[in-house]
Protein backbone atom coordinates (compact mmCIF):
# COMPACT_ATOMS: atom_id res chain seq x y z
CA UNK A 1 0.00 0.00 0.00
CA UNK A 2 1.22 3.52 -0.71
CA UNK A 3 1.82 5.31 2.58
CA UNK A 4 2.25 8.84 1.30
CA UNK A 5 1.91 11.06 -1.77
CA UNK A 6 5.56 10.54 -2.74
CA UNK A 7 5.04 6.77 -2.96
CA UNK A 8 1.75 7.22 -4.83
CA UNK A 9 3.36 9.47 -7.46
CA UNK A 10 6.44 7.26 -7.69
CA UNK A 11 4.32 4.17 -8.33
CA UNK A 12 2.26 5.91 -11.04
CA UNK A 13 5.43 7.16 -12.77
CA UNK A 14 7.30 3.85 -12.54
CA UNK A 15 4.40 1.83 -13.91
CA UNK A 16 3.36 4.62 -16.32
CA UNK A 17 -0.25 4.56 -15.16
CA UNK A 18 -2.67 7.14 -13.80
CA UNK A 19 -3.12 7.80 -10.09
CA UNK A 20 -6.66 6.46 -10.53
CA UNK A 21 -5.28 3.17 -11.79
CA UNK A 22 -2.87 2.89 -8.82
CA UNK A 23 -5.89 3.30 -6.53
CA UNK A 24 -7.99 0.72 -8.39
CA UNK A 25 -5.17 -1.86 -8.35
CA UNK A 26 -4.55 -1.33 -4.64
CA UNK A 27 -8.25 -1.69 -3.88
CA UNK A 28 -8.30 -5.00 -5.80
CA UNK A 29 -5.27 -6.20 -3.87
CA UNK A 30 -6.45 -5.17 -0.40
CA UNK A 31 -10.10 -6.22 -0.68
CA UNK A 32 -9.65 -9.16 -3.08
CA UNK A 33 -12.62 -7.87 -5.09
CA UNK A 34 -12.80 -7.82 -8.87
CA UNK A 35 -12.14 -4.69 -10.93
CA UNK A 36 -15.74 -4.75 -12.24
CA UNK A 37 -17.12 -4.92 -8.72
CA UNK A 38 -15.01 -1.99 -7.51
CA UNK A 39 -15.79 0.17 -10.54
CA UNK A 40 -19.50 -0.62 -10.22
CA UNK A 41 -19.50 0.56 -6.60
CA UNK A 42 -17.77 3.81 -7.55
CA UNK A 43 -20.25 4.30 -10.41
CA UNK A 44 -23.03 4.02 -7.81
CA UNK A 45 -21.35 6.71 -5.71
CA UNK A 46 -21.16 8.90 -8.85
CA UNK A 47 -24.90 8.44 -9.43
CA UNK A 48 -25.71 9.50 -5.86
CA UNK A 49 -23.50 12.60 -6.31
CA UNK A 50 -25.23 13.48 -9.58
CA UNK A 51 -28.71 13.11 -8.05
CA UNK A 52 -27.71 15.32 -5.10
CA UNK A 53 -26.45 18.07 -7.46
CA UNK A 54 -29.67 17.93 -9.50
CA UNK A 55 -31.80 18.04 -6.36
CA UNK A 56 -29.81 20.92 -4.86
CA UNK A 57 -29.95 22.98 -8.07
CA UNK A 58 -33.73 22.58 -8.13
CA UNK A 59 -33.74 24.11 -4.63
CA UNK A 60 -34.01 22.56 -1.17
CA UNK A 61 -34.43 24.00 2.31
CA UNK A 62 -33.04 22.62 5.57
CA UNK A 63 -35.26 21.89 8.57
CA UNK A 64 -33.73 24.79 10.52
CA UNK A 65 -34.23 27.17 7.60
CA UNK A 66 -30.60 28.32 7.82
CA UNK A 67 -29.56 27.00 4.41
CA UNK A 68 -30.93 26.14 0.99
CA UNK A 69 -31.65 27.91 -2.26
CA UNK A 70 -28.25 29.54 -2.79
CA UNK A 71 -27.18 27.03 -5.48
CA UNK A 72 -30.03 27.94 -7.88
CA UNK A 73 -29.55 31.63 -7.02
CA UNK A 74 -25.97 31.45 -8.31
CA UNK A 75 -27.07 29.54 -11.44
CA UNK A 76 -29.52 32.33 -12.26
CA UNK A 77 -26.71 34.86 -11.81
CA UNK A 78 -24.42 32.88 -14.14
CA UNK A 79 -27.19 32.76 -16.75
CA UNK A 80 -27.35 36.56 -16.78
CA UNK A 81 -23.75 36.52 -18.04
CA UNK A 82 -22.50 39.50 -16.03
CA UNK A 83 -20.19 37.64 -13.63
CA UNK A 84 -16.75 38.83 -12.54
CA UNK A 85 -14.79 35.56 -12.20
CA UNK A 86 -15.37 32.63 -14.59
CA UNK A 87 -18.26 30.47 -15.67
CA UNK A 88 -16.71 27.06 -14.86
CA UNK A 89 -15.51 28.20 -11.45
CA UNK A 90 -18.93 29.63 -10.52
CA UNK A 91 -20.62 26.51 -11.81
CA UNK A 92 -18.35 24.44 -9.52
CA UNK A 93 -19.23 26.72 -6.60
CA UNK A 94 -22.95 26.42 -7.31
CA UNK A 95 -22.84 22.62 -7.63
CA UNK A 96 -20.75 22.27 -4.47
CA UNK A 97 -23.37 24.32 -2.60
CA UNK A 98 -26.15 22.27 -4.18
CA UNK A 99 -24.68 19.08 -2.68
CA UNK A 100 -24.20 20.56 0.78
CA UNK A 101 -27.66 22.10 0.79
CA UNK A 102 -29.09 18.63 0.13
CA UNK A 103 -26.88 17.26 2.93
CA UNK A 104 -28.09 19.94 5.35
CA UNK A 105 -31.67 19.03 4.46
CA UNK A 106 -30.94 15.42 5.52
CA UNK A 107 -31.02 14.27 1.92
CA UNK A 108 -28.93 11.48 0.41
CA UNK A 109 -25.31 12.26 -0.48
CA UNK A 110 -22.00 10.47 -0.86
CA UNK A 111 -19.39 11.48 1.73
CA UNK A 112 -16.22 12.80 -0.01
CA UNK A 113 -14.32 12.49 2.27
CA UNK A 114 -17.00 13.49 4.79
CA UNK A 115 -20.62 14.62 4.60
CA UNK A 116 -19.80 18.16 5.74
CA UNK A 117 -17.27 18.46 2.91
CA UNK A 118 -19.27 16.43 0.37
CA UNK A 119 -19.76 19.33 -2.06
CA UNK A 120 -16.22 20.08 -3.25
CA UNK A 121 -15.38 16.92 -5.23
CA UNK A 122 -18.72 16.52 -7.08
CA UNK A 123 -19.05 20.31 -7.50
CA UNK A 124 -15.78 20.57 -9.41
CA UNK A 125 -16.38 17.29 -11.29
CA UNK A 126 -19.79 18.24 -12.64
CA UNK A 127 -18.57 21.75 -13.52
CA UNK A 128 -15.59 20.58 -15.63
CA UNK A 129 -17.85 17.95 -17.19
CA UNK A 130 -19.34 20.76 -19.28
CA UNK A 131 -15.90 21.90 -20.39
CA UNK A 132 -13.86 18.69 -20.78
CA UNK A 133 -16.72 16.40 -21.88
CA UNK A 134 -15.29 13.32 -20.09
CA UNK A 135 -16.68 9.82 -20.64
CA UNK A 136 -18.56 8.21 -17.76
CA UNK A 137 -15.47 6.03 -17.21
CA UNK A 138 -13.26 9.10 -16.85
CA UNK A 139 -15.69 10.58 -14.34
CA UNK A 140 -15.41 7.40 -12.25
CA UNK A 141 -11.61 7.65 -12.56
CA UNK A 142 -11.80 11.21 -11.20
CA UNK A 143 -13.27 9.78 -8.00
CA UNK A 144 -10.51 7.16 -7.69
CA UNK A 145 -7.86 9.88 -8.11
CA UNK A 146 -9.54 12.03 -5.47
CA UNK A 147 -9.87 8.95 -3.27
CA UNK A 148 -6.17 8.12 -3.55
CA UNK A 149 -5.11 11.53 -2.21
CA UNK A 150 -7.81 11.46 0.47
CA UNK A 151 -6.57 8.03 1.52
CA UNK A 152 -3.11 9.47 2.24
CA UNK A 153 -4.56 12.38 4.24
CA UNK A 154 -6.84 10.09 6.26
CA UNK A 155 -3.98 7.77 7.18
CA UNK A 156 -1.34 10.43 7.88
CA UNK A 157 -3.43 13.27 9.28
CA UNK A 158 -7.21 13.32 9.68
CA UNK A 159 -10.44 13.87 7.76
CA UNK A 160 -12.47 14.62 10.88
CA UNK A 161 -13.51 18.14 11.89
CA UNK A 162 -13.72 17.05 15.52
CA UNK A 163 -10.11 15.86 15.37
CA UNK A 164 -8.54 18.39 12.98
CA UNK A 165 -10.91 21.28 12.24
CA UNK A 166 -12.40 22.25 8.87
CA UNK A 167 -8.95 22.13 7.26
CA UNK A 168 -9.20 18.33 7.69
CA UNK A 169 -12.58 18.22 5.94
CA UNK A 170 -13.00 20.96 3.32
CA UNK A 171 -9.20 21.36 3.18
CA UNK A 172 -8.75 17.66 2.37
CA UNK A 173 -11.65 17.77 -0.09
CA UNK A 174 -10.17 20.78 -1.92
CA UNK A 175 -6.80 19.04 -2.19
CA UNK A 176 -8.41 15.83 -3.45
CA UNK A 177 -10.50 17.71 -6.02
CA UNK A 178 -7.55 19.79 -7.23
CA UNK A 179 -5.46 16.65 -7.83
CA UNK A 180 -8.31 14.87 -9.63
CA UNK A 181 -8.97 17.93 -11.82
CA UNK A 182 -5.33 17.96 -12.89
CA UNK A 183 -5.38 14.29 -13.84
CA UNK A 184 -8.65 14.62 -15.76
CA UNK A 185 -7.28 17.64 -17.66
CA UNK A 186 -4.25 15.60 -18.76
CA UNK A 187 -1.69 16.69 -16.16
CA UNK A 188 0.99 14.38 -14.75
CA UNK A 189 0.82 12.56 -11.38
CA UNK A 190 3.47 15.00 -10.11
CA UNK A 191 1.33 17.98 -11.15
CA UNK A 192 -1.66 16.41 -9.38
CA UNK A 193 0.40 16.28 -6.17
CA UNK A 194 1.43 19.92 -6.63
CA UNK A 195 -2.23 20.91 -7.02
CA UNK A 196 -3.14 19.06 -3.83
CA UNK A 197 -0.32 20.81 -1.94
CA UNK A 198 -1.31 24.26 -3.23
CA UNK A 199 -5.01 23.77 -2.42
CA UNK A 200 -4.39 22.35 1.06
CA UNK A 201 -1.84 25.04 1.97
CA UNK A 202 -4.56 27.62 1.53
CA UNK A 203 -6.91 25.83 3.89
CA UNK A 204 -4.43 25.33 6.76
CA UNK A 205 -5.70 26.56 10.09
CA UNK A 206 -9.35 26.61 9.07
CA UNK A 207 -11.47 25.89 12.14
CA UNK A 208 -14.68 23.90 12.47
CA UNK A 209 -17.24 26.20 14.11
CA UNK A 210 -20.72 25.11 13.03
CA UNK A 211 -23.51 27.45 14.13
CA UNK A 212 -25.83 25.65 16.56
CA UNK A 213 -23.81 22.49 15.85
CA UNK A 214 -25.58 22.17 12.49
CA UNK A 215 -23.69 21.20 9.33
CA UNK A 216 -25.03 24.30 7.57
CA UNK A 217 -23.39 27.61 8.51
CA UNK A 218 -20.60 28.10 7.50
CA UNK A 219 -20.24 24.62 5.94
CA UNK A 220 -22.17 25.26 2.72
CA UNK A 221 -20.17 28.37 1.85
CA UNK A 222 -16.88 26.77 2.89
CA UNK A 223 -17.58 24.05 0.35
CA UNK A 224 -18.28 26.80 -2.19
CA UNK A 225 -14.89 28.42 -1.68
CA UNK A 226 -13.23 25.02 -1.29
CA UNK A 227 -14.38 24.20 -4.82
CA UNK A 228 -13.11 27.54 -6.17
CA UNK A 229 -9.79 26.97 -4.39
CA UNK A 230 -9.48 23.51 -5.99
CA UNK A 231 -10.12 24.90 -9.48
CA UNK A 232 -7.47 27.62 -9.10
CA UNK A 233 -4.91 25.28 -7.53
CA UNK A 234 -5.44 22.84 -10.44
CA UNK A 235 -4.93 25.60 -13.00
CA UNK A 236 -1.76 26.78 -11.21
CA UNK A 237 -0.31 23.25 -11.17
CA UNK A 238 -1.20 22.71 -14.83
CA UNK A 239 0.63 25.97 -15.61
CA UNK A 240 3.76 24.37 -14.13
CA UNK A 241 3.74 26.14 -10.77
CA UNK A 242 5.16 24.02 -7.94
CA UNK A 243 4.62 24.09 -4.20
CA UNK A 244 7.87 24.90 -2.39
CA UNK A 245 6.73 22.66 0.47
CA UNK A 246 6.18 19.05 -0.73
CA UNK A 247 2.63 17.71 -0.53
CA UNK A 248 3.42 15.18 2.23
CA UNK A 249 4.90 17.91 4.42
CA UNK A 250 1.82 20.09 3.90
CA UNK A 251 -0.33 17.15 5.06
CA UNK A 252 1.95 16.68 8.09
CA UNK A 253 1.64 20.41 8.88
CA UNK A 254 -2.14 20.13 8.66
CA UNK A 255 -2.09 17.25 11.16
CA UNK A 256 0.06 19.22 13.64
CA UNK A 257 -2.09 22.32 13.34
CA UNK A 258 -5.15 20.17 14.02
CA UNK A 259 -3.58 18.73 17.14
CA UNK A 260 -2.80 22.15 18.59
CA UNK A 261 -6.15 23.68 17.61
CA UNK A 262 -8.32 24.46 20.67
CA UNK A 263 -11.23 22.07 21.29
CA UNK A 264 -13.62 25.05 21.15
CA UNK A 265 -12.81 25.28 17.44
CA UNK A 266 -13.15 21.58 16.59
CA UNK A 267 -16.81 20.83 15.95
CA UNK A 268 -18.02 21.63 19.46
CA UNK A 269 -19.99 24.77 18.55
CA UNK A 270 -18.25 26.61 21.42
CA UNK A 271 -16.08 29.09 19.54
CA UNK A 272 -15.57 30.96 16.28
CA UNK A 273 -18.69 31.77 14.28
CA UNK A 274 -20.74 29.46 16.53
CA UNK A 275 -20.09 31.80 19.48
CA UNK A 276 -21.18 35.03 17.74
CA UNK A 277 -24.31 36.81 19.06
CA UNK A 278 -26.22 36.08 15.86
CA UNK A 279 -25.31 32.39 15.99
CA UNK A 280 -26.44 32.17 19.63
CA UNK A 281 -29.72 33.81 18.70
CA UNK A 282 -30.32 31.26 15.93
CA UNK A 283 -29.42 28.48 18.28
CA UNK A 284 -32.05 29.69 20.73
CA UNK A 285 -34.63 30.04 17.94
CA UNK A 286 -33.97 26.54 16.57
CA UNK A 287 -33.66 24.58 19.80
CA UNK A 288 -35.89 26.67 22.05
CA UNK A 289 -33.01 27.73 24.28
CA UNK A 290 -29.28 28.22 23.97
CA UNK A 291 -27.22 25.43 25.48
CA UNK A 292 -26.51 26.69 29.01
CA UNK A 293 -23.13 25.00 29.23
CA UNK A 294 -21.93 27.14 26.36
CA UNK A 295 -23.02 30.53 27.75
Amino acid at each position, binding site marked *: *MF*RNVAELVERAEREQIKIAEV*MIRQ*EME*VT*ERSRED*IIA*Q*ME*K*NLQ*VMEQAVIRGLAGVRSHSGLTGGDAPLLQQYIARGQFLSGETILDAVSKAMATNE*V*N*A*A*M*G*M*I*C*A*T*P*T*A*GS*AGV*VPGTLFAVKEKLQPTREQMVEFL*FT*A*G*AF*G*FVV*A*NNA*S*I*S*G*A*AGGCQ*AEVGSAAG*MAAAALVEMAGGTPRQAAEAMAIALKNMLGLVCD*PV*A*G*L*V*EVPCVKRNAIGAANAMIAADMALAGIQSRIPCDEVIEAMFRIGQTMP*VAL*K*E*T*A*QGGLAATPTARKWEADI*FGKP*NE*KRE
Partner: protein
Amino acid sequence: MKYRSVFDIIGPIMIGPSSSHTAGAVRIGKVARNLFGRKPAWADIFFYGSFAETYRGHGTDVAIVGGLLNFDTFDERMKTSLHIAKQEGIRITFHEEEAIPPHPNTAKIRLGDEKGELELVGISIGGGKIEIIELNGFELKLSGHHPALLIMHNDRYGAIAGVANVLAKYAINIGHMEVSRKEKGKQALMTIEVDQNIDDAIVEQLKALPHIIDVTKIVE
Protein backbone atom coordinates in the same frame (compact mmCIF):
# COMPACT_ATOMS: atom_id res chain seq x y z
CA MET B 1 -3.08 2.29 8.61
CA LYS B 2 -6.57 3.11 9.84
CA TYR B 3 -8.13 3.49 6.40
CA ARG B 4 -7.69 0.60 3.98
CA SER B 5 -10.28 1.11 1.25
CA VAL B 6 -10.94 3.93 -1.22
CA PHE B 7 -14.60 3.65 -0.23
CA ASP B 8 -13.70 4.82 3.28
CA ILE B 9 -12.84 8.11 1.53
CA ILE B 10 -15.34 8.24 -1.36
CA GLY B 11 -18.38 7.05 0.56
CA PRO B 12 -20.45 6.03 2.35
CA ILE B 13 -23.70 6.85 0.58
CA MET B 14 -25.67 8.29 3.44
CA ILE B 15 -28.41 10.50 4.78
CA GLY B 16 -26.86 13.82 5.91
CA PRO B 17 -25.73 15.91 7.54
CA SER B 18 -22.50 14.52 9.07
CA SER B 19 -20.40 11.46 8.22
CA SER B 20 -18.89 11.24 11.70
CA HIS B 21 -21.89 12.42 13.72
CA THR B 22 -24.64 10.84 11.60
CA ALA B 23 -23.33 7.92 9.46
CA GLY B 24 -20.73 6.91 12.08
CA ALA B 25 -23.42 7.03 14.78
CA VAL B 26 -25.69 4.78 12.69
CA ARG B 27 -22.86 2.27 12.42
CA ILE B 28 -22.15 2.28 16.18
CA GLY B 29 -25.84 1.68 16.84
CA LYS B 30 -25.96 -1.08 14.25
CA VAL B 31 -22.97 -2.93 15.74
CA ALA B 32 -24.69 -2.77 19.15
CA ARG B 33 -27.87 -4.20 17.63
CA ASN B 34 -25.93 -6.96 15.82
CA LEU B 35 -24.01 -7.94 18.94
CA PHE B 36 -27.17 -7.97 21.04
CA GLY B 37 -28.72 -10.11 18.32
CA ARG B 38 -32.32 -8.96 18.74
CA LYS B 39 -34.50 -5.91 19.24
CA PRO B 40 -33.76 -4.41 22.67
CA ALA B 41 -36.53 -3.39 25.06
CA TRP B 42 -34.60 -0.37 26.24
CA ALA B 43 -31.41 1.57 25.47
CA ASP B 44 -29.45 4.17 27.43
CA ILE B 45 -27.27 6.27 25.14
CA PHE B 46 -24.44 8.40 26.54
CA PHE B 47 -22.79 11.11 24.43
CA TYR B 48 -19.30 12.48 25.15
CA GLY B 49 -17.15 15.31 23.75
CA SER B 50 -18.24 16.73 20.40
CA PHE B 51 -21.11 14.22 20.33
CA ALA B 52 -22.46 15.67 23.60
CA GLU B 53 -22.06 19.27 22.40
CA THR B 54 -23.60 18.95 18.94
CA TYR B 55 -25.72 15.80 18.77
CA ARG B 56 -28.98 17.68 18.28
CA GLY B 57 -27.67 19.68 15.33
CA HIS B 58 -26.10 16.69 13.64
CA GLY B 59 -28.99 14.29 14.21
CA THR B 60 -26.64 11.96 16.12
CA ASP B 61 -29.54 10.90 18.36
CA VAL B 62 -31.75 10.04 15.40
CA ALA B 63 -28.86 8.23 13.69
CA ILE B 64 -27.75 6.05 16.61
CA VAL B 65 -31.35 4.96 17.18
CA GLY B 66 -31.60 4.24 13.43
CA GLY B 67 -28.63 1.92 13.89
CA LEU B 68 -30.34 0.21 16.85
CA LEU B 69 -33.30 -0.36 14.50
CA ASN B 70 -30.81 -2.01 12.09
CA PHE B 71 -31.07 0.78 9.45
CA ASP B 72 -28.28 1.31 6.92
CA THR B 73 -26.58 4.74 6.64
CA PHE B 74 -28.71 5.55 3.57
CA ASP B 75 -32.10 4.51 4.97
CA GLU B 76 -34.67 7.22 4.20
CA ARG B 77 -36.60 6.37 7.40
CA MET B 78 -33.69 7.84 9.43
CA LYS B 79 -35.41 11.18 10.15
CA THR B 80 -38.28 9.39 11.91
CA SER B 81 -36.23 6.78 13.80
CA LEU B 82 -37.15 8.10 17.28
CA HIS B 83 -40.81 7.82 16.39
CA ILE B 84 -40.35 4.32 14.93
CA ALA B 85 -38.45 3.17 18.04
CA LYS B 86 -41.33 4.41 20.20
CA GLN B 87 -43.86 2.57 18.01
CA GLU B 88 -41.82 -0.60 18.38
CA GLY B 89 -41.87 -0.18 22.14
CA ILE B 90 -38.15 0.52 22.66
CA ARG B 91 -37.52 2.87 25.59
CA ILE B 92 -34.67 5.25 24.67
CA THR B 93 -32.93 7.62 27.10
CA PHE B 94 -30.19 10.07 26.11
CA HIS B 95 -27.50 11.33 28.48
CA GLU B 96 -25.09 14.21 27.84
CA GLU B 97 -21.86 13.42 29.66
CA GLU B 98 -19.30 15.97 30.82
CA ALA B 99 -16.32 13.62 31.13
CA ILE B 100 -13.57 14.28 28.58
CA PRO B 101 -13.16 11.16 26.42
CA PRO B 102 -9.88 10.08 24.74
CA HIS B 103 -11.59 10.60 21.35
CA PRO B 104 -13.86 13.63 20.75
CA ASN B 105 -16.66 11.61 19.11
CA THR B 106 -17.52 8.98 21.69
CA ALA B 107 -20.81 7.24 22.47
CA LYS B 108 -21.65 4.58 25.02
CA ILE B 109 -24.71 2.39 24.51
CA ARG B 110 -26.22 0.24 27.23
CA LEU B 111 -29.12 -1.84 25.99
CA GLY B 112 -31.09 -4.83 27.07
CA ASP B 113 -34.31 -6.71 27.65
CA GLU B 114 -35.60 -9.24 30.20
CA LYS B 115 -33.09 -11.83 28.94
CA GLY B 116 -29.87 -9.84 29.05
CA GLU B 117 -27.87 -6.64 28.74
CA LEU B 118 -24.98 -5.36 26.69
CA GLU B 119 -22.76 -2.29 26.97
CA LEU B 120 -20.40 -0.98 24.34
CA VAL B 121 -18.34 2.15 23.69
CA GLY B 122 -17.79 3.33 20.13
CA ILE B 123 -15.81 6.16 18.57
CA SER B 124 -16.41 7.81 15.20
CA ILE B 125 -13.02 8.62 13.71
CA GLY B 126 -14.00 10.51 10.54
CA GLY B 127 -15.66 9.99 7.18
CA GLY B 128 -18.16 7.54 8.69
CA LYS B 129 -15.51 5.12 9.90
CA ILE B 130 -15.91 3.80 13.45
CA GLU B 131 -14.19 1.66 16.03
CA ILE B 132 -15.74 -0.20 18.94
CA ILE B 133 -13.28 0.23 21.79
CA GLU B 134 -15.06 -1.41 24.72
CA LEU B 135 -17.55 -4.23 25.12
CA ASN B 136 -19.03 -5.17 28.50
CA GLY B 137 -16.01 -3.60 30.17
CA PHE B 138 -13.44 -5.37 27.99
CA GLU B 139 -11.15 -3.24 25.86
CA LEU B 140 -11.04 -4.17 22.19
CA LYS B 141 -10.67 -2.71 18.73
CA LEU B 142 -13.36 -3.58 16.24
CA SER B 143 -14.14 -1.71 13.03
CA GLY B 144 -17.54 -3.25 12.36
CA HIS B 145 -16.61 -3.22 8.66
CA HIS B 146 -15.51 -6.86 8.56
CA PRO B 147 -17.20 -10.06 9.66
CA ALA B 148 -16.01 -10.87 13.16
CA LEU B 149 -16.31 -13.29 16.05
CA LEU B 150 -16.49 -12.17 19.66
CA ILE B 151 -15.75 -15.01 22.01
CA MET B 152 -16.20 -14.77 25.77
CA HIS B 153 -14.05 -17.42 27.43
CA ASN B 154 -12.31 -18.43 30.63
CA ASP B 155 -8.74 -17.14 30.83
CA ARG B 156 -7.09 -20.60 30.50
CA TYR B 157 -4.35 -22.03 28.33
CA GLY B 158 -5.59 -23.79 25.20
CA ALA B 159 -8.74 -21.68 24.75
CA ILE B 160 -7.22 -19.65 21.91
CA ALA B 161 -5.65 -22.70 20.25
CA GLY B 162 -9.00 -24.51 20.31
CA VAL B 163 -10.73 -21.65 18.50
CA ALA B 164 -7.89 -21.27 16.00
CA ASN B 165 -8.03 -24.99 15.21
CA VAL B 166 -11.73 -24.87 14.36
CA LEU B 167 -11.24 -21.83 12.10
CA ALA B 168 -8.28 -23.51 10.37
CA LYS B 169 -10.36 -26.65 9.78
CA TYR B 170 -12.87 -24.56 7.78
CA ALA B 171 -10.12 -22.58 5.98
CA ILE B 172 -11.16 -19.31 7.59
CA ASN B 173 -8.44 -16.69 7.51
CA ILE B 174 -7.98 -14.34 10.50
CA GLY B 175 -7.39 -10.70 9.55
CA HIS B 176 -7.02 -9.26 13.04
CA MET B 177 -7.16 -10.84 16.47
CA GLU B 178 -6.80 -9.71 20.05
CA VAL B 179 -7.45 -10.97 23.55
CA SER B 180 -8.51 -8.81 26.47
CA ARG B 181 -9.10 -9.65 30.13
CA LYS B 182 -10.00 -7.70 33.22
CA GLU B 183 -8.23 -9.98 35.66
CA LYS B 184 -5.82 -12.90 35.30
CA GLY B 185 -7.59 -16.28 35.39
CA LYS B 186 -11.12 -14.87 35.12
CA GLN B 187 -13.23 -14.08 32.06
CA ALA B 188 -11.58 -12.90 28.86
CA LEU B 189 -12.70 -11.74 25.41
CA MET B 190 -11.28 -12.84 22.06
CA THR B 191 -11.98 -10.51 19.14
CA ILE B 192 -11.34 -12.06 15.74
CA GLU B 193 -11.91 -10.22 12.46
CA VAL B 194 -12.17 -12.63 9.53
CA ASP B 195 -12.40 -12.36 5.74
CA GLN B 196 -15.76 -14.07 5.22
CA ASN B 197 -19.06 -14.47 7.03
CA ILE B 198 -19.13 -17.38 9.50
CA ASP B 199 -21.79 -20.11 9.33
CA ASP B 200 -23.95 -20.77 12.39
CA ALA B 201 -22.71 -24.38 12.40
CA ILE B 202 -19.16 -23.14 13.04
CA VAL B 203 -20.39 -20.86 15.81
CA GLU B 204 -22.06 -23.87 17.46
CA GLN B 205 -18.79 -25.85 17.25
CA LEU B 206 -16.91 -22.97 18.86
CA LYS B 207 -19.49 -22.76 21.66
CA ALA B 208 -18.95 -26.45 22.42
CA LEU B 209 -15.20 -26.04 22.96
CA PRO B 210 -13.78 -26.19 26.51
CA HIS B 211 -13.47 -22.86 28.39
CA ILE B 212 -15.78 -21.06 25.91
CA ILE B 213 -18.64 -19.17 27.56
CA ASP B 214 -20.34 -17.48 24.63
CA VAL B 215 -19.81 -16.71 20.95
CA THR B 216 -21.33 -13.85 18.99
CA LYS B 217 -20.73 -13.10 15.34
CA ILE B 218 -20.88 -9.93 13.29
CA VAL B 219 -21.81 -10.38 9.65
CA GLU B 220 -20.73 -8.00 6.93
